[in-house]
């Protein structure tokens, strides 16, 4: 799988180069340019319709979140609420402990992201820039576990946490999710593209290996660090099964658990449910819009999700 992903990345780079030459060629042939232009207009129209259709769930979510409960399901569908019920957005904080849920989600996401990025980039340096016997076998062990579905070992993990007395605590989730093999894999893929000569030069200048990691490799790997941080953060924020298995008391619940339980308890409060959904998605939307370049790069590099 490593080869494949490396290929993909190389291809993406090659692709960018060939795009440039393609553009130059278009400029020379004007009849073709015209044909391309009409094609583009058609493509544009198709895209607008298509994307609008694909966005219907989001549109419906936002529009319903601004309605009264009894106006959510109407025949015909009202895409724009007759009157905007903004009070949903102020009432939800008292209906369910939404603020607490958001804080819990934020806490878990931040801690796990920091640990994953830190330990992942350290380990990746060891796996890519320091040569020692047994290194590659060990790395193979890491890769091997990525191939095992986590559902296959969630029961032993659960038994372990139970025995450590860590169920119903954030620590269980932090321990289980902060040391994933995925982060090591993603960072190593990137470090392999940094020439060894750079490290060598730094060594000759008298930097220790730790110094090289901190002063040479880390600054160079900002895009990869950003990708890993964003992917980890979003995965943790969105994670449902982990909190579902480990967090039983309401005060520890994350946004996902809180929202799910709200739906279970008050399944007729359609508008309020949609309001909660919007609130749970907004932080992800903001993070995504700010860092979307890194998301895409992270996926092209690793071809994998967390």
């Amino acid at each position, binding site marked *: 799988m490593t080869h494949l992903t490396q290929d993909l990345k190389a291809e993406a780079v090659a692709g960018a180069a060939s795009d440039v030459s393609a553009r130059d060629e278009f400029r020379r042939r004007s009849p073709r340019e015209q044909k391309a232009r009409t094609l583009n207009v058609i493509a544009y129209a198709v895209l607008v319709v298509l994307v609008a259709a694909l966005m219907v769930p989001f549109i*419906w979510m936002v529009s319903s979140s601004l309605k009264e409960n009894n106006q959510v399901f109407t025949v015909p569908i009202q895409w724009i609420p007759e009157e905007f019920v903004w009070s949903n957005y102020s009432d939800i904080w008292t209906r369910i402990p939404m603020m607490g849920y958001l804080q819990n989600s934020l806490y878990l996401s931040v801690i796990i992201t920091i640990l994953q990025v830190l330990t992942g980039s350290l380990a990746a340096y060891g796996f890519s820039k320091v040569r020692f016997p047994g290194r590659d076998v060990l790395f193979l062990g890491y890769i091997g576990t990525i191939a095992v579905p986590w559902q296959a070992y969630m029961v032993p993990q659960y038994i372990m946490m139970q025995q450590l007395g860590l169920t119903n605590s954030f620590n269980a989730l932090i321990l289980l999710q902060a*040391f994933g093999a995925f982060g090591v894999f993603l960072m190593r893929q990137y470090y392999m593209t940094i020439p060894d000569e750079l490290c060598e030069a730094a060594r000759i200048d008298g930097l220790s290996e730790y110094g090289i990691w901190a002063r040479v490799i880390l600054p160079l790997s900002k895009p990869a660090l950003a990708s890993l941080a964003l992917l980890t953060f979003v995965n943790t924020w969105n994670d449902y099964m982990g909190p579902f298995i480990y967090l039983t008391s309401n005060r520890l619940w994350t*946004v996902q658990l809180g929202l799910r339980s709200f739906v279970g308890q008050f399944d007729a409060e359609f508008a309020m449910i949609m309001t909660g959904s919007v609130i749970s998605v907004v932080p992800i939307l903001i993070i995504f819009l700010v860092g979307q370049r890194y998301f895409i790069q992270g996926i092209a590099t690793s071809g994998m999700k967390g």
Partner: protein
Amino acid sequence: MTTETRLRAPAVGPDPKRRNNLNRGKNLNRGNRKQARRNTLIGWTFILPNFLGFLAFTLIPVLAAFALAFMEWTSFSAPKWVGLENFERMLGSDSFWIALRNTVIYAVGHVPLTLVLALGLAMLLNRKLKGIGFFRIAIFFPYITSLVAVAVVWNMLFSPTDGPINQFLQFVGVANPPGWTSSSDWAMPAVIITSVWRDMGYYMILYLAGLQAIPTELYEAAEVDGASPWQRFWNVTVPSLRPTTFFVVVMLTVSSFKVFDLIVVMTNGGPGRATTVLSQLIYQEGIGEGKFGYSSAVSLVLFLIVLTVTVLQFKIQQRRER
């Protein structure tokens, strides 16, 4: 870095020019053993913080899962070696077969639909247009939207009475639209539609990378030869995308067999057992009822399926390349 001064790096670290192994072996023998030991120590200090967590919370549980499958162990009894008993029990239980069948049905629906739509979208989006980035982002966004929100919204969209989807179906002339998540025949299609909508943006990104790597000369040559757009698609695009498609198929199949949270949130396996999948069975038996041994046997089956699918696809790919 406080450790910086304490642990000085060796003057000759990892070999920059990657000399062959023979040479390196000689170097070691010549008295660079100390150096090698030092490198080992340094290497391990880098790896250790992650490795400790990885060892304790991933590697050991993975190995334990294999062993547990051959043991009888519940939350009320001590572990006992029972050989293949768990597997015998599993093969004789309908909940296992139902879960397996549902998982396969899900995969059979999810894999081809996602693949075709992801490729179609990638072809459509692989052009230089103003604002194309916006369309790509919009199509990708469902993939990173929280699953609970996705499941909740789609559940409402699928609402059998007055839900927007059934209203639309009635509008286009379907007299008796399906009951979706409330019907045991239509719950699985509803889950598949939701998951396809959620995942296709992700695979579209992979296909876009693949499409951008195809040299434009190939298309130009095909055009000069008088190939129609359809012929160009089948004879240039499809073969050039083969490595990407292979990767996408492996990833899609593996992720289909692992399907879990979407089903838990959307239908919780119901109605009845119409959408219960393998992962859920593992959860119910293992964590829900504390049958650690039995659930690990189911886990092992899930792992073997995923492994077989991956190996099989690698084999097929190799044969094609030859």
